[in-house]
């Protein structure tokens, strides 16, 4: 459990540090990612640093990622985690600082003794009031 927790928290810390190489270290080869940003799915090389570097460059500083309510379940060489994560960042250009809560599900596989992220799914719910807007202003219940 502690190894898996270290992966989840370590990857979040690497994003906060803006350390692209460290973030990508945690991915398994062929990882399938459902991220907050399009496309619908990302099955490209998860170890390609360019997309992540380009995303980080949209912020004035690397976003702060906080992992909360982390739940870990494991059996054999497969594990999954769920959490509610908080991202705080300032957009380049607008200077707008925002905080976004999102739901995170990670699937992990133990490969050669090391836990790697084989799947990640990040999302926010969306409004059913006709606006179809992504609900980026939700917060976990106190």
């Amino acid at each position, binding site marked *: 459990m502690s190894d898996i927790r270290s992966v989840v928290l370590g990857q979040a810390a690497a994003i906060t540090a803006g350390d692209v190489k460290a973030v990508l270290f945690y991915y398994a080869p062929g990882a399938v990612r*459902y991220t907050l940003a399009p496309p*619908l799915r990302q099955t490209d090389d998860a170890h390609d640093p360019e997309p992540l570097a380009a995303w980080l460059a949209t912020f004035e500083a690397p976003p702060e990622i906080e992992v909360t309510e982390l739940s870990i379940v494991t059996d054999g060489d497969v594990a999954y985690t769920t959490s509610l994560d908080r991202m705080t960042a300032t957009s380049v250009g607008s200077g707008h600082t925002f905080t976004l809560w999102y739901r995170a599900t990670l*699937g992990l596989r133990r490969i050669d003794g090391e836990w790697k992220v084989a*799947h990640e799914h990040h999302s926010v719910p969306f*409004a059913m009031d006709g606006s179809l807007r992504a609900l980026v202003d939700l917060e976990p219940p106190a």
Partner: protein
Amino acid sequence: VGDFASEVVPLLRAEVMALHSGDTAPRKALWSHREPVTLFGAEFTRSGWAELEPIFDHLATTFVGGGRDTRYEVLSADCSGDLGYVVAIERSQVGDRPMYELRVTTLFRREDGAWRVIHRHADPLTPASRALIADRQAS
């Protein structure tokens, strides 16, 4: 994707189609009632069976026209020990509405010899799918 996916994907497809037709029995049978069990749904985020069961009952009342079709494009699936997962694009048609698609991550735990769903994370990334889900009750 192996025997595991061959076993569970038809069950997922059946319970989603049933839910779209107002029948929660297949979902309640397939889902674990033990902790931890969680839903990160397109509309709702819930944890624990006491929260999940009423939300499934509610969801089953919101689809008009009945489940016409549900298809799974499985991108990844595997199991180890008593845990398994399916990563897929789930495409559904309800009533005479166009098909919509969800990104779905489903996690399973084997309980008493049977695979049970313990987590579903689903979201419609495309605006078209969001619209189809959001106005489903108005159709």
